[in-house]
């Protein structure tokens, strides 16, 4: 089976993000970047499915040449080949989905697995757009029933169960107050939630092998996709800073303040 996964380049969540005073964006100086953690889960899931059912994992990303770093990361984890859509300019979610749809038409995967959202802009749109553009079924927020510490997890079994005839995939989703189990006809788009798997470490031999794995370069023009954004960011603002707490001298004052100021008792 052939699986397409994505590897968006995002700011490392451990970096300190500072919004520019004029609200036009964030300061990029000194920021660290890595693969979107939800995409890394998608890569891991693709690798487990390919290991179980045979087949290959193709990793795709859109961006300037720096996104090759994230593609190489996925290749070092074990992905077989990479597709890089070279586009350094602004993009919105529909633009990305349009490009990925064309890549899917070329690569013809049985399943496209994407992170449910990217941790930079938290839009949670691309997987949904992609399914719509391709006319495929979709299951978002794929999770897993077994605990991450289970033996099954240790054996790196996939969390997505492909049916015996290979025509559908069973996806367990976390929803408010419980689990939702879907069977989706293939080809399908699946987006990953945090608890689907624990991504493996890449390996040093993997890093060396990734050097010689192919990265195919495409462009929006070559794919015939107009990526002019339909969505523009007008303003960014940091959340209000938390005020320092106060110390109260005794329990009576605490109760009084909980009543009069916090209004919780």
């Amino acid at each position, binding site marked *: 089976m052939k699986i397409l996964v994505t590897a968006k380049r995002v700011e*490392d969540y451990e970096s300190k993000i500072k919004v520019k005073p004029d609200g036009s964006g964030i300061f990029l100086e000194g920021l*660290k970047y890595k693969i979107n953690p939800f995409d890394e889960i998608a890569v891991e899931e693709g690798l487990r499915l390919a290991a179980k059912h045979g087949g290959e994992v193709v990793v795709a990303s859109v961006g300037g040449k720096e996104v090759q770093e994230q593609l*190489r990361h996925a290749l070092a984890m074990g992905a077989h080949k990479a597709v890089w859509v070279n586009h350094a300019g602004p993009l919105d979610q529909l633009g990305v989905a349009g490009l990925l749809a064309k890549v899917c038409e070329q690569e013809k995967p049985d399943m496209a697995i994407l992170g449910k959202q990217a941790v930079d802009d938290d839009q949670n749109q691309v997987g949904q757009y992609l399914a719509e553009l391709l006319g495929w079924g979709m299951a978002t927020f794929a999770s897993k029933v077994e605990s991450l510490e289970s033996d099954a997890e240790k054996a790196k079994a996939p969390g997505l169960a492909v049916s015996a005839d290979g025509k559908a995939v069973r996806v367990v989703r976390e929803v408010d107050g419980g689990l939702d189990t879907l069977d989706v006809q293939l080809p399908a788009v699946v987006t990953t939630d945090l608890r689907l798997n624990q991504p493996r*470490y890449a*390996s*040093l*031999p993997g890093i*060396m092998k*990734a050097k010689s794995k192919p990265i195919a370069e495409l462009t929006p023009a070559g794919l015939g996709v107009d990526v002019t954004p339909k969505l523009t960011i007008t303003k960014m603002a940091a959340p209000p800073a938390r005020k320092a707490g106060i110390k109260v001298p005794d329990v009576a004052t605490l109760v009084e303040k909980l009543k009069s100021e916090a209004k919780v008792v």
Partner: protein
Amino acid sequence: MSRSPVTDLYRIDDMLTAEERAARDLVAGFIDRDYLPKVGRWFRDGKFPMEVVPTLAEMGVFGAPLPTEYGCAGMNNVAYGLILQELERGDSGLRSFASVQTSLCMYPIWQFGSEKQKRRWLPEMAKGRAIGCFGLTEPDFGSDPGGMRTRARKDGEHYVLNGSKTWITNGSIADVAIVWAKVDDGDSKSIRGFLLEKGMPGFTAQDIHGKFSLRASFTSELSFQDVRVPAANLLPGVQGLRGPLSCLNSARAGIAFAVTGAAIACFEGAREYALSRQMFGKPIAGFQLTQEKLADMLQEIVKAQLVSLRLGRLKDEGKVTPEQVSLAKRNNVKAALEIARSARSIFGANGITDEYPAIRHMLNLESVFTYEGTHEVHTLILGKAITGLDAFGG
């Protein structure tokens, strides 16, 4: 996970290849996620965490610079140095384990071993299923290994070994020990390397207790009493002190790279602490005395990194000399030790506990200062290179 722009003031990151950065970041991720949360406890308990060995092996850390045909990663020496730097940022005990496995055991087997020895040991050691140790130092012969007393007497198709070795990292957990011995009462030119296997009658290992340094690592004494070693276990490719010394030279280059990791851990920890710790109504980072300490630390880290990076490149180009290795080991270990001591003072009283990394690194680096050629021996190697005069005898 490149270094923060504060630590990487000189943008040394830009001087690395994508693979070198990826190798470093891979190991850094493991250290942050799986090692640092537990190392304080391992150090306190005086225990090397065997449970990390399979993960490190899966990542390909052991024998990383050796060729792929023996199951290794085939990385260059700069990438390997950066891997060691991240391991040492975790703890010198962990890095010592990897250095011994790779530079002191796998390297000599690869360099001086028979094809049969290579095929037998290297893939198993790369997978972490066989652990190695290196026996050169003796109770009475450390800096002067040529005086060693361990003897191998040829007896038909065997050698019979007698003697002892000490300060052997991984000694008690090793499946294979590379033991250097003089053959048939010869002088230092007769020194040969032997592969002793766990369980050979007369070969025993005992841990050294009471260490205040490298506590998260096993250090042992080896003893040989009429150990009969098949002649096939002799390393055929080298004779004399050149054998062990070339292993040490390889390991020392790695150490020069590695200790910067301990220095970075101390610097970054101390900086963060100084920014949050309030005294006299402001963060202690706002005091000139603290800033001087931090400035000194960063300056030495930048210098040490540039020296080790250049050393790694020279090694990759096949141009490295023992004197270059001595300068790097001497400079970088001393710098790291002083950084750790200075960081300990910024942490104040908190700095003496294992809640904070400084004192652990500080104590570890006291060992690193002495092992793999003492600081003093490296001084003499450089002194000889500068003057042409040998001062080893006094």
